[in-house]
């Protein structure tokens, strides 16, 4: 087994052990299979087929390695209908799953762990007084307690077996432990569907499984479509924002980096997932209004007149005007509108101070200034991350919200920050450069007051 090579020895031991135990169980099941009559075998076949179909089309969670599928429902229905031995056999068919690109070791392990889970759940089911046979219509209520026991064992056991292999092969940090609760709930949901399949088997046989699982498959298809659209959407919004930035040679990639940094701060202060998405979009779109600022103002050397500065100050409003038709959270709009406000009230466009400034805007302000300082500009080179951090700390309380600055520093200390590549000064006639950056707190724009 070539795929085993390169794994640490304890991982090999674990994999071999799991597969070995499963083989032993399987051998025992086949020997003891005289318990299954002809009816049992035909049901077993249908269930195995069902399980295989479910197992072959899993949804991918965030982790590429651990795929979750509705095959649980089929496996648990097998516990009721054909007992522990049957459930183990049904689980073992995961080896044959037709997912392309799955290495043999993974197949074997998957089959083995399903077989073990199935057998254990079946054993629990029978210990709690359930009998493995076709439930009759009146006996539905008697099924519930043993089945709940079986599901309560199957789900965590499955999770532990998979989590262990991820830990041992060093992929554990990719398992989203935050989503664990949601994970278990959806597993238990699938378990309920298993009960329904088993309960209806007496009425319409295997059709019950089709009827229960069809809506789920459709749901999963729709969810897949949703994820595809989501990815496509994120790529599109990034590409369009970058197109807006091509105007200024030096600020390329600014929007994606501000989006990233805003997301880091938001995560650090514990924002929920919907708001997190919203602030990423707000960070991405915060400067779209800059296109409305005449290029000659941005390219002008030396101080600006008040009128010219007013043109710059207008860009958050312009940006808001552009994106207002999009169905974002209102907070995202507030973030775009007020990302140049300052804690001391000297910012623009409205001169809000302290807590009057929306939370999103306070976050974007920090991310915006930080990226500006750590990127090259035509009038200076990029500053190192530490220097930029010192500047942020210096500005905390006057320009920035201290809470957000602290959160950002913490996040960068932990995750690091990938500063943009060095920008090679472009030949003067091929690209546009600007002489000033309105985001840069270390070089504020000079304004000549008009008499």
């Amino acid at each position: 087994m070539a795929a085993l090579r390169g794994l640490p020895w304890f991982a090999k031991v674990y994999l071999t052990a799991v597969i070995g135990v499963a083989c032993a169980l399987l051998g025992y099941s086949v020997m003891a299979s005289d318990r299954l009559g002809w009816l049992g075998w035909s049901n077993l076949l249908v269930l195995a087929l069902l399980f295989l179909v479910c197992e072959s089309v899993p949804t991918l969670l965030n982790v590429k390695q651990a795929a979750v599928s509705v095959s649980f429902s089929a496996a648990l229905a097998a516990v009721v209908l054909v007992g522990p031995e049957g459930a183990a056999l049904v689980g073992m068919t995961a080896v044959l799953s037709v997912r392309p690109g799955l290495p043999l070791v993974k197949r074997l392990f998957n089959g083995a762990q399903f077989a073990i889970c199935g057998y254990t759940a079946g054993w629990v089911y029978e210990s709690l007084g359930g009998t493995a046979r076709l439930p009759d219509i009146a006996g539905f209520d008697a099924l519930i307690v043993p089945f709940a026991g079986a599901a309560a064992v199957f789900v965590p056991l499955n999770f532990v077996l998979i989590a262990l292999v991820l830990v041992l092969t060093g992929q554990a940090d990719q398992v989203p432990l935050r989503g664990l609760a949601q994970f278990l709930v959806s597993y238990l949901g699938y378990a309920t569907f298993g009960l329904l399949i088993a309960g209806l088997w007496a009425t319409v046989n295997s059709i019950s499984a089709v009827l229960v699982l069809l809506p789920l498959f459709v749901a999963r298809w729709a969810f897949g479509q949703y994820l595809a659209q989501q990815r496509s959407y994120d790529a599109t919004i990034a590409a369009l924002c970058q197109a807006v930035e091509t105007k200024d040679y030096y600020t390329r990639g600014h929007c994606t980096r501000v989006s990233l940094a805003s997301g880091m701060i938001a995560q650090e202060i514990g924002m929920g997932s919907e708001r997190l998405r919203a602030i990423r979009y707000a960070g991405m779109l915060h400067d779209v209004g800059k296109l409305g600022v005449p290029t000659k103002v941005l390219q002008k050397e030396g101080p600006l007149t008040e009128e010219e500065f007013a043109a710059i100050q207008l860009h958050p409003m312009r940006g808001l005007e552009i994106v207002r038709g999009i169905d974002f959270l209102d907070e995202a709009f507030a973030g775009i509108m007020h990302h140049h406000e300052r804690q001391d009230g000297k910012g623009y466009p409205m001169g809000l101070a302290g807590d009057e400034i929306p939370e999103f805007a306070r976050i974007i302000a920090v991310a915006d200034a930080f990226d500006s300082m750590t990127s090259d500009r035509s009038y200076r080179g990029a500053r190192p991350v530490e220097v930029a951090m010192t500047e942020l700390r210096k500005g905390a309380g006057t320009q920035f919200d201290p809470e957000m600055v602290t959160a950002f520093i913490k996040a960068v200390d932990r995750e690091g920050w990938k500063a943009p590549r060095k920008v090679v000064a472009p030949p003067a006639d091929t690209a546009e450069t600007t002489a000033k950056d309105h985001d840069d707190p270390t070089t504020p724009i000079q304004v000549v007051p008009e008499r």
Partner: protein
Amino acid sequence: MTTTTASTGAPRALRRLDSGQLLLICVAGLLAVAGIAHTAATGLLSPEIAIGFGALIAAGELARLTMPGNREVAPIGAAAALGYTLLLDMGNVPARHPALQVIAVLAVGMAAGALPHLAVGRPPRLDAMARRLFTGALLALAYRPLAGPLFERAKGPEGDWWPALGVMALLIAAMVLVDVVLAAVLRAEQVRAAFGVAVQDELRMAAPLWAAVAASGILLALASHSMGMAALLVFAAPLLVTQVAFRKYAGIRATYLQTVRALARVTEVGGYVEPGHSHRVSRLAVAIGRELGMAEPELLDLEYAALMHDIGQLSLRDPIPGGATVLTEPAQARRIAELGAEVIRQTGVLDRVAEIVRRQCDTCSETPPPASRVIKAANAYDDLVGGSTDRDRAGAALERLRLGAGKEYDPAVVEAMTSVIDRLASLQRL
């Protein structure tokens, strides 16, 4: 294409409906009245079952959602309605409610579910509701007379459920077909799509949703046999998952379109093109595309491409005066098209759109994709006419395009455009 007259209140809502919709609403209304009157006269049979299903229908109506293309659907309500219609027995007690009672429960449930929406100022799409009621009523009228005999065959330990299952599946398939055709007829009338294309579009949109709804509805009816009323609660679950997934999908689709529409406007804010140019070009292009019989996925690509057809100008040093690409030299226009396609290709997902944008300047002899031809013509028209509603100006622009037909512009596109613009003009005269 609907008129956007500035009148308010009920008359406006009515004016937006065309004759087909009105007819459907009237028929559905009559059915509802007949059902309720009959039930009121003869009394409600097994009221607790009716109330249970009615409540689920109301909940489903409350949780209705809008799918891409402004299609209102209520999957949970539809499944509950199916379940109530198909019900053979409840815990081995035969269900004897007549078709008219089903219609009454449906109507009352839907009305109850629509009320909270109405209270917060989101009136229901009357035509969509009427269609749901109408198809539900058709199924009830066809199936309820058969329910008794079917249960006779199925009941008892030796019972045979297969005939019941077969009849259910057959009738539901017929109902879905009626629903799809009805939706296509209404849509064809409303947006002037070709009927065949509209049927395909509706089928594509409806197939997955109806598969889930039909399965749940049948399940609901069958499970009531062994589980009693508890089935109502449990079987909402798989469908709830489906509903959530579809809602998310519909949400992102809507946001996507809004975002492209919004960001296409940066060219206007930057002074590269006339205000409203991208929006007008995309509306005209989609109308022409529909006239040419494009299906919905193609129309979506066309709309995106039309919205972003000038995005390449962002890479230019200075805005072209007025941004009128029909008056710029061809080399320059081609460069803008290339740059724009490059920007769109960066997304990594909109390759077809990028290709449409890249070839928007091609002449007929270069055989560009149909969508590019549409954009070329729509763009040229808007560059010449702009936001003006002057008929002479529109006529002159059309004349100029017609002169270029066969060489610069695709004759079929110019012809389609002529009829679209004529129709718009006649609407404006009203």
